[in-house]
């Protein structure tokens, strides 16, 4: 219709004043100036992320609600899944294969927790901008929040899986290493920043190269086996110990940001650095104190912040044409 073809005669059917519009004072918020140009203004983008944090919570909640909209058990499903994985690995490794490592399932869960967070968010983030093309094309908001909302969803899954782990630990009567538990918040910070950075990158790239989604899944599978989750870090360290030419492998492991995070989780939750089986000592983790772990995590946090800012810049560049690419 034309705006105003149905223009009412004055005094006829007045719309109710809404939202206290009468309070409006022109020029009240005019000191706030929004600039749109071709440049990526990193500080501004980061500030926008912070001011829109309510939206991040809502986008996360929306994804969760949509995900579990029609399942009766709802959130229980996401707990059932890790519980089942725990049970299967318990059966396979403790009873059938007899690796000899006590409470292997707990070891496994300790490593899987941070990996699942990263993995879940990375996979979900590849499709998130494309799936939400409706709002990306019609509403202006910091689109990085879409990618970060997948981190939010993965974080909720993380909490639910942690509950399963805690229940298992109570059943098997395992006490975590209280000394190392204080490193977990540091490891979480490192993990969340790194995951956020990767999710932002992947979500933007997938808009232009739609098969990023499939490539990511394959890459993540390879990545999973390159991280000492099923096996242990010391297994590799021992193998390369004798060969000076292979020492770089050890360093390559520690350069992977996920590995030290996983090792911190294992160290804190599983608490043992070695076990005795058939008269032989099997080492699992380096017997470092808090210091080296904290240092490694510190380096990862600094590097992840750098990666995060880089991801924001790349996202900002690619974002300019989202509306026409979708």
């Amino acid at each position, binding site marked *: 219709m034309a*705006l105003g073809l149905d223009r009412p005669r004055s005094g006829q059917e007045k719309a*109710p004043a*809404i*939202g206290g*519009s009468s309070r*409006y004072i022109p020029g009240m*918020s005019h000191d706030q100036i929004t600039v*749109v140009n*071709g440049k990526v203004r990193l500080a501004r983008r980061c500030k926008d992320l912070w001011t829109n944090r309510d939206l991040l919570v809502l986008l996360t909640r929306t994804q969760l609600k949509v995900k579990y909209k029609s399942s009766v058990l709802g959130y229980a499903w996401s707990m059932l899944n890790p519980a089942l994985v725990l049970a299967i690995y318990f059966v396979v490794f403790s009873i059938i294969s007899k690796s000899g490592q006590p409470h292997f399932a707990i070891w496994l869960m300790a490593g899987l927790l941070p990996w699942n967070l990263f993995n879940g968010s990375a996979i979900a983030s590849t499709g998130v901008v494309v799936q939400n093309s409706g709002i990306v094309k019609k509403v*202006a908001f910091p689109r990085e929040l879409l990618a970060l909302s997948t981190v939010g969803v993965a974080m909720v899954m993380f909490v639910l899986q942690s509950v399963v782990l805690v229940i298992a630990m109570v059943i098997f009567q395992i006490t975590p290493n209280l000394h190392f538990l204080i490193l977990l918040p540091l490891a979480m910070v490192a993990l969340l920043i790194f995951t956020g950075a990767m999710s932002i990158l992947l979500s933007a790239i997938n808009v232009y190269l739609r098969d990023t989604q499939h490539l990511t899944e394959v890459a993540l599978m390879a990545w999973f086996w390159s991280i000492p989750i099923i096996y242990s870090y010391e297994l590799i360290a021992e193998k390369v110990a004798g060969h000076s030419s292979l020492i770089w492998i050890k360093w390559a492991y520690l350069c992977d940001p996920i590995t030290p995070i996983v090792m911190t989780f294992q160290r804190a939750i599983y608490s043992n650095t070695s076990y005795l089986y058939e008269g032989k000592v099997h080492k699992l983790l380096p017997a470092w104190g808090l210091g080296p772990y904290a240092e490694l995590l510190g380096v990862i946090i600094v590097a992840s912040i750098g990666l995060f800012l880089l991801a924001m810049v790349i996202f900002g560049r690619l974002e300019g044409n989202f509306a026409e690419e979708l």
Partner: protein
Amino acid sequence: MPAAIEIEGISKQFKLYNEKYTSLKERVIRGGKMPYTPFWALKDVSAEVEQGETFGILGRNGCGKSTLLKCVAGILKPTSGEIRVRGNLAAMLELGAGFQPDLSGRDNIYLNGSLLGLSRADIDRRFDSIVAFAELENFIDNQVKFYSSGMYVRLGFAVAINVEPDVLLVDEVLAVGDSAFQRKCLEQVKQFQREGRTIVVVSHATDTIRQNCSQVMVMSHGQVVTVGEPGEAIRVFLAELLGGTKVINAETGEMEGNVLAISTVTTEHGGSGVRNHLYPGDSLTVTADIDALSPVPDAMVTIAVHDDRNELVFASDPDDPAAAVEIPVGGGLVQFQFPEVPLLDGTYSVSVGIRSNSQPTVFDWKEGVARFEVANPARSTGLVRLPFEVSFRHRSGPLTGEVPVTLGGTNLAGWSEPSL
């Protein structure tokens, strides 16, 4: 007061791909090359929108007006140039964009409100008025997928309007909902105008622009044609529109330009005495002087009358066979005769157009080129003079004079209506 929106030399290039490869696999196969044609949707567009102004952007489909609006909203990034917006901004490009069908209306209000930049506390405070405006009190906890399209749109508008922006961008989204709701939306937009908020309306409809805007920018092929008062801008827009409708004759392959042009339009009333205004009921003659480069056997003339608020009073049927005229080489005078103009007080503008009946060619259109004024010497008021008669008769007994014809009406105090 500084301008609400400053647009400085905005250009936007789109890449038109002949074939689009959206996967890495395809890119590798094609050696990374993607042939494309650059298309400039916006070319060096500059404009300033003053605070409290209702700014219209007028243009044909594909002229870049929506692209410009998206750039101002920050949805698209310009290739070069800069836009500065003072104060908070809300863009209504599509109502209910971002509604999640699986969520309830309540959840969607929070989601949509946050997308438009409201904080949680803001929405908490405005929640009730949003629901009331959308008239969805009974359905707010239902899933949005069960909403009718009207309910959907009402909710979308209610959220958008409650953002209370300093600058509101509207992209013809008000073309939705039933007429009662449209009126409500419009009333809200008017209230925003009264409150001194800045509104930018994008449209290709001249009526929309004429009635709402204080300043109008005309765009064509990604460039600014003119910025000015609505009447003048619309005239330029229509002229541009007509200039752009040169068609190629399929048989001769020749370009048909403006073979016909309206040079002057004059008005003349048929009332007695020397006065430059009409009395209601006077006759009116509008004369258009038409120049013709070649004979046009099948021209159609149209006429439109607008009042001083730019509301359309009358527009002739464009396909009325009575409006067909044959124009010889050199042209001549076309006269429109109104035997009686029933309008009451006011100043009216006359627009005259001429087009081909057999081809999609509009030769000329002169917007508001002539005026006439009506002054009512009597004390009746209103818009038009409706002829009426008064008669009297008793409730019973024989009728005297003519039988008055009653077209329905309130049957007060047992009046017996004559059967028809």
